[in-house]
């Protein structure tokens, strides 16, 4: 088991360099002071009102995500690897989505089976042949990375639709700066505060050619009842753009307008946090009241940019994920800098046999599930749960993949009885604009609060940490 502060079990005597100052500080700081700060942080979060609606939890529809005050620290050289790996990944993803909706070279080359695309619910036939500004489809990606030892990072998931969590990255930093100025004085931590500016620049850079030099950007939210509504309003505020719902927009002569008190105003770029299915009832689900009728026609006419583009789910589908190394090779001619977790595709019968035989050792996931739903962690599951899951798996194998249970790295975390290692992952946010890919140094570190737990999803009780990337 690799601990990011104390290294592997064999080397537990030595604190890893990036954590040395934190180690000292933790030693110098009295437990009651730490505890006081912890409660103060919680109070601040409550005051800000940063909450997360958890689906299927009737008792507490909105609750605070636990915040851990001990930062997770990455050295400059570690970040350098991550950064290069993430940029490489997003380049390949954009090339892939562009290809899938146009020439489909990758299918002609036989790298991917055709039915994995055409029969995939997240593939959008409606996007076929649709040109998007500067061929950028995924403008904002949240790529989930885990670590298993000092050198090895794996990409666990590419979130290429409407990834959320960046508000936590920003809030966590703000609160840490407020509560622990003395700890920051011992480090040179790369800033993350400019993320909203970078995001706005990215969005403006992909405005349609018809837009003015200062394009109008809006954030489209499904509304108050969405689990990420807080983030939507937070980001709109930070970006200084309008937060709109579908009913605030109207399409006339293939142009999208926003209703304002001074009449209609043309909209050029929509940072949409609504799923494809609900975007336009004239093209997708006809019963959607969240979307904008005619939006896709304005999109087709190149009068508006949607970020992310429609149909990008094809790039973060869990079945497609298993092909990412080949996808990178195909478009970039490069080997992946960040590893892919070996993945068994249950749609292939020999893989299915293996998975059924080893289900107790594997993590088995529903291809279209997310947020930790529809997932079985073999080593942590009891017999009855496994049996029920196997029945589901056998009835529809093509909907499942399985991966080995990775020994996720741990980070020191404040728990009931002091400070103890807890498993973490990392979601850095990658921005892709007209001619620049930018990754804000840091991201959202999620931490599984119960001892030994590997489930970091906030919907399953995971917490967050501030993520520090050290300047050289």
């Amino acid at each position: 088991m690799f601990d990011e502060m104390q290294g592997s079990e064999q080397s537990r005597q030595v604190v890893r360099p990036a954590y040395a100052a934190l180690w000292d500080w933790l030693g110098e700081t009295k437990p009651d002071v730490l505890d006081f700060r912890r409660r103060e942080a919680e109070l601040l979060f409550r005051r800000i009102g940063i909450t997360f609606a958890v689906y299927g939890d009737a008792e507490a529809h909105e609750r605070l995500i636990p915040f851990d005050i001990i930062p997770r620290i990455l050295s400059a050289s570690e970040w350098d690897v991550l950064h290069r790996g993430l940029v490489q990944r997003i380049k390949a993803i954009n090339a892939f989505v562009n290809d899938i909706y146009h020439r489909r070279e990758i299918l002609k080359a036989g790298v991917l089976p055709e039915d994995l695309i055409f029969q995939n619910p997240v593939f959008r036939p409606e996007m076929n042949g649709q040109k998007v500004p500067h061929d950028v489809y995924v403008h904002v990606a949240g790529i989930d990375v885990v670590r298993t030892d000092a050198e090895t990072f794996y990409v666990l998931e590419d979130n290429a639709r409407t990834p959320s969590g960046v508000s936590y990255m920003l809030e966590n930093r703000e609160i840490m700066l407020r509560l622990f100025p003395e700890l920051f004085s011992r480090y040179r931590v790369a800033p993350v505060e400019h993320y909203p500016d970078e995001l706005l620049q990215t969005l403006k850079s992909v405005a349609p050619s018809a837009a003015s030099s200062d394009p109008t950007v809006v954030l489209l939210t499904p509304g108050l009842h969405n689990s990420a509504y807080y983030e939507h309003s937070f980001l709109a505020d930070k970006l200084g753009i309008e937060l709109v719902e579908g009913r605030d927009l109207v399409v006339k002569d293939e142009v999208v307008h926003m209703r304002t008190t001074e009449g209609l105003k043309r909209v050029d770029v929509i940072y949409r946090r609504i799923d494809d299915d609900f975007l336009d009832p004239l093209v997708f689900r006809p019963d959607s009241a969240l979307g904008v009728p005619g939006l896709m026609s304005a999109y087709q006419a190149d009068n508006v940019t949607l970020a992310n583009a429609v149909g990008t789910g094809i790039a973060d589908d869990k079945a497609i994920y298993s092909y990412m190394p080949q996808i990178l090779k195909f478009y970039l001619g490069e080997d992946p800098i960040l590893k892919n977790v070996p993945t068994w595709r249950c749609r292939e019968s020999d893989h299915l046999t293996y998975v059924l035989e080893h289900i107790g050792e594997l993590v088995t996931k529903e291809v279209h599930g997310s947020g930790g739903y529809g997932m079985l962690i073999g080593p942590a599951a009891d017999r009855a749960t496994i049996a029920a899951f196997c029945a589901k798996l056998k009835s529809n194998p093509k909907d499942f993949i399985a991966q080995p249970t990775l020994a996720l790295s741990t980070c020191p975390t404040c728990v009931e009885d002091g400070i103890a290692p807890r498993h973490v992952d990392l979601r850095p946010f990658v921005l892709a604009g007209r001619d620049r890919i930018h990754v804000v140094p840091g991201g959202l570190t999620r931490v599984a609060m119960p001892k030994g737990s590997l489930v970091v999803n906030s919907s399953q009780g995971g917490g967050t940490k501030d993520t520090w990337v050290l300047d050289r």
Partner: protein
Amino acid sequence: MRISIAHSTVYRYEPPANGAVQVLRLTPRNHDSQYVARWRIDVSPDAQLAMREDAFGNITHVFSAARPLPEIRVDVDGEVETQDGNGVVRGTAERFPQSLFLRDTDLTRADAAIRALAEEIGTANGCIPLDSLHALMRRLHDEIAYDTALTNTPMSAAEAFALKRGVCRDLTHAFIAVARCLGIPARYVAGYLQLADGITEQEAGHAWAEAFVPDLGWVGFDPANAICQTDAYVRVAVGLDSLGAAPVRGARYGISAESLEVAIKVGQ
């Protein structure tokens, strides 16, 4: 055969709507056995009609208005020259490989009953696609009663098959669902049919299916009439289901009641 078509659709809003957007798939294209001699599409109130092609190669027009509308009127008028292709449709605008048309949609998803029918038909016909499709067409024609009372009741293939009643749309969905279960690419076609009995006035457009048969290509099957496509058919739009090929998909702003009036005349 030379077929003339007049198709008018009137939406009335009470009180007037504050605006509307409509996507129209009402313009046929040429293919080997279909030549569009004359075609005109008019919308009132007068508005810009942007013509484009959708992802499936259908011609679309988008109408939008952001002012009070008591009604919208869409008039289509044209003439199409057709030939009998023995059911086979060649020279169509194809934007996807056939295998895309194995794709499920909410309206064509198979349930246990549909899968059972697919298995039965596949077995009885030695899994020969053309034989299976003919058998399927007859079977659905005999088993699902034509009931125009259901025109405005949206149903999935599985629902229609369970109810054993429906209109051409529902029979077509069922046909597509079963064909796809058999591994045969199938799609929905919206268009017009000139009736053999000489009656020209119709209450609705027609719908049928196309299935991809190896060595032949796309073949039109009309389960509502239990015949393959002839020169009496005018093909307007295709899609994975009726939504994808819908002649009109629209939305209006404001709260008003909508009433719809359709008048279609198909004749020589």
